[in-house]
């Protein structure tokens, strides 16, 4: 092996005037970046640093800072530093570039080009501190026709749920945190495709259980012990490809939950091999409805891709009670970088188009629309609802609340924050009591903000905002983009 042509990505700066050689950084770095020798001297191996910030956060004297490695390639707008480094990495490894979390590219962010309305004089605003504001949301088939009688609904106290993250991709303590938070918040969490760990059986009634092509952890009790069932067709971070849980994360516990050999890669390929058509999807939906005696809403999750509105129409016609669309900024535990960064479309566009299409076809009431993939704050939630969503899923934001520092190295299984790991020693770094408290705090804060913004618009129920695109105006968008989003430009 020749010496690598790459420089480290990050540089750790240790302020010797502040370092007390306490060794906290050494003990906390699962990447073995820090080292203390027998004389007490501290050393770092920058090459291994992923900028997870764990050491910097825990350092009791703030002696550590982590910076991007200060090397500037000659300025080049085409061959940028990341582009060059990616080539080096592939030249040296021959591998597909793997990454974690959502698309970091600077594509136009339509949420940031949408403005919310507020009432002035002619339509009084509402003070949410004094007047009741209704955030309750029902998800499911709300159409009146059909002979089966009342359709099962999910009742959400807030229009925000925790998105699918499987046990294996995230630690059991993440699931415990979110499951407990969902229970307290009156909403739902999603198991992802990894089964339900026995520790979480008590949280089944607040869980949306997922079925994907690998069928990991799917059995009658799993289907029964749930609020709803979600068939995962695609994921915003990696449309068109399946799940791949690296063997590093398949611990004995994961192996038990998924019924696969420990330390092997858990693969759920892109297609469900029993679904090659909308008819096949309808058949799987019906199979699940029969298996659960029509007591559970069935959700179908697809990635936002080019012809999403046609797909959505088919999915709803196939009998899905909830349609979940995951935008191209959606997070993941592991995805090939090229796919994460280049495949799919923005959720804002997909949402606007799907909502319009379903309304045009007169089938909007047959399924609720849940969007996900890059929802960052309460304004994004509100804009999504105004664009036509019934509710949103969040995942990356929830993980940040739990301590994630966005180093994007989820696939290594060495998450220093106890989030994207299954190692027992790392898993315990996330205390679910603290984790659930943070998640609850986050969504409680968002709820307050949503109420304030809704109050400002003079709207006292989130249902009244759904699809109410008059409450949105575009800024800095082309006429075509405005048309696609179905919103007027600011000023009009």
């Amino acid at each position, binding site marked *: 092996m020749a010496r690598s042509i790459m420089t480290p990505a990050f540089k750790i700066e240790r302020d010797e005037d502040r370092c007390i050689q306490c060794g906290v950084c050494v003990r906390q770095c699962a990447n073995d970046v820090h080292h203390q020798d027998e004389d007490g001297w501290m050393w770092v191996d920058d090459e291994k640093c992923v900028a997870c910030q764990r050491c910097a956060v825990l350092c009791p004297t703030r002696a550590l800072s982590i910076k991007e490695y200060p090397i500037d390639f000659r300025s080049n707008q085409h061959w940028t530093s990341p582009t060059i480094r990616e080539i080096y990495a592939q030249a040296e490894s021959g591998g597909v570039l793997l990454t974690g979390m959502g698309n970091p590219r600077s594509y136009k962010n339509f949420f940031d080009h949408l403005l919310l309305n507020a009432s002035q004089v002619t339509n009084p605003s509402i003070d949410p501190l004094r007047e009741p504001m209704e955030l309750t949301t029902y998800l499911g088939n709300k159409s009146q026709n059909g002979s089966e009688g009342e359709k099962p609904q999910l009742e959400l106290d807030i229009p925000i749920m925790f998105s699918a993250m499987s046990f294996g991709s995230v630690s*059991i303590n993440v699931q415990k945190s979110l499951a407990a938070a969902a229970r307290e918040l009156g909403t739902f969490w999603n198991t992802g495709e990894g089964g339900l760990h026995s520790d979480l059986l008590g949280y089944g009634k607040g869980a949306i259980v997922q079925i994907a092509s690998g069928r990991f952890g799917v059995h009658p009790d799993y289907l029964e012990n749930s609020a709803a069932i979600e068939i995962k067709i695609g994921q915003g971070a990696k449309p068109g490809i399946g799940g791949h849980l690296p063997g590093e994360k398949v*611990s*004995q*516990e994961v192996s038990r939950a998924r019924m696969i050999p420990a330390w092997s890669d858990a693969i759920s390929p892109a297609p469900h091999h029993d679904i090659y058509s909308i008819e096949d999807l309808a058949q799987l939906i019906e199979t699940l409805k029969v298996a659960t005696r029509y007591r559970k809403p069935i959700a179908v999750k697809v990635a936002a891709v080019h012809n999403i509105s046609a797909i959505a129409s088919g999915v709803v016609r196939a009998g899905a009670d909830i349609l979940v669309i995951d935008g191209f900024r959606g997070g993941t535990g592991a995805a090939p970088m090229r796919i994460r960064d280049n495949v799919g479309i923005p959720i804002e566009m997909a949402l606007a188009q799907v909502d319009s299409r379903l309304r045009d076809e007169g089938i909007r009431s047959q399924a609720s629309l849940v969007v996900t993939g890059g929802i960052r704050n309460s304004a994004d939630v509100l804009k999504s609802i105004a664009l036509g969503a019934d509710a949103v899923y969040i995942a990356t934001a929830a993980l940040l609340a739990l301590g994630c520092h966005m180093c994007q190295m989820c696939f290594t299984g060495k998450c220093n924050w106890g989030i994207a790991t*299954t*190692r*027992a020693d790392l*898993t*315990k770094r996330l205390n679910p009591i603290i984790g659930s408290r943070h998640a609850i705090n986050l969504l409680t804060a968002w709820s307050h903000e949503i109420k304030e913004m809704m109050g400002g618009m003079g709207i006292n129920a989130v249902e009244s905002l759904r699809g109410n695109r008059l409450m949105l105006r575009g800024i800095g968008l082309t006429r075509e983009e405005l048309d696609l989003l179905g919103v007027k430009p600011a000023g009009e």
Partner: protein
Amino acid sequence: MRYVIIGSCIAAMGAVEGIRSIDKKGLITIIDGEQRGAYTRPLISYFLAKPYKFKDIRYRSPEFLAANGVEVINAMAEQINRTDKQVVLNDGQIIPYDHLLIATGAYPVMPDIAGIEKSWIKTFYTQADAESLNALLAEGQEAVIIGSGLIGMKAAEALWQRGLKVSIVEKDAYMLPRVLSSGSAVILNSLINGAGINIRCAEELTAVLPDHQLEFASGMKLHADLLILALGTRPRSELAVACGIKVNKGIVVNNYLQTSDENIFAAGDVIETRNILTGENEIMALLPQAHKEGFLAGCNMAGHKIAYTGGIFQNSVNIMGVSICSAGSLSDAAYTSLIWKQDEKYLELFLDGSYLYKYTAINLPELSGPLTAAIERRIMIEETAWRTFMAAPSLSTIPPAYWHKIGDIPRANTWNQ
């Protein structure tokens, strides 16, 4: 209820605490024959070395006694009248009792050798002993200490600190025979010899000759300006014998620290204590035991029936900067011995199957707590786990099984890979 306690040291203070934990009102009278209050005998060597002020070797303060409503009578108990439930004092007072505690402690053992009544020959057991010794000694003198038990060793240290030339003579094969093992004695011997105290083992004093000469069984002769006899103690049980209570080597008590007279209890160095390891009753003149016995005796005197399960031999002492901790069986012959040594540290475990019976730790006091508890609580730990521990003994390497069984302490992380 009227409680009378004969004696004023550790067991007596334990008893006051025990009685008061149950009975806040009953009258407690302490008969303090030594008239020194509650002080700690092991601290007299510190008194001699430094010297400490008197209050510093007090075990409990007069305020403690006042706060607990204890009446102290500075007189000797001369007789116990069991029929009338009275204690007769040397000043003629007669103290009635409902429940009596005999906590009279012990005497230092005196050898049967002619000439030991000389003024330069002392025992080292009481505050008074230390004070009279303090008045006698001068820098540069030669002191000989007979007996290398804890008392002898601490006396030696104190005299050495005061600038005397000190020799210790032990009749057994190695020093501190009730504390050390043959292996650990070698280590300690070198550490202490190196510090300047002369140690002679397997020598028995046979005669005190004129001109400060001592003669030993082997024929060895030593000069001594000062001779200290530290040959151990025996129970001060004559009051009990005289009133007809059952006495063996020490006063015999049941599990409730009750003597053969149900109204008379006894605790501390004067009684025979059940040795957990052997099940036999033995004299165990140990301070923590004395307090515990006193406390439980007090509880039982006040009407709570709390059984005393017994104790084990355990000692921790610092001599010339060397820490020595040991607990468990007095003999080490029958056990598997595991030894770890590094520089001036030494640890020896004595195992029988999965049970620890004894340990000796030199300069490793931090390990002594768990090791003592492992013996005392009969904690079963696989020998292999002990062997692993002995590869690098530290608090962190104590077998996990110990922590699991000690209670209160963290369970193992159930979330294992």
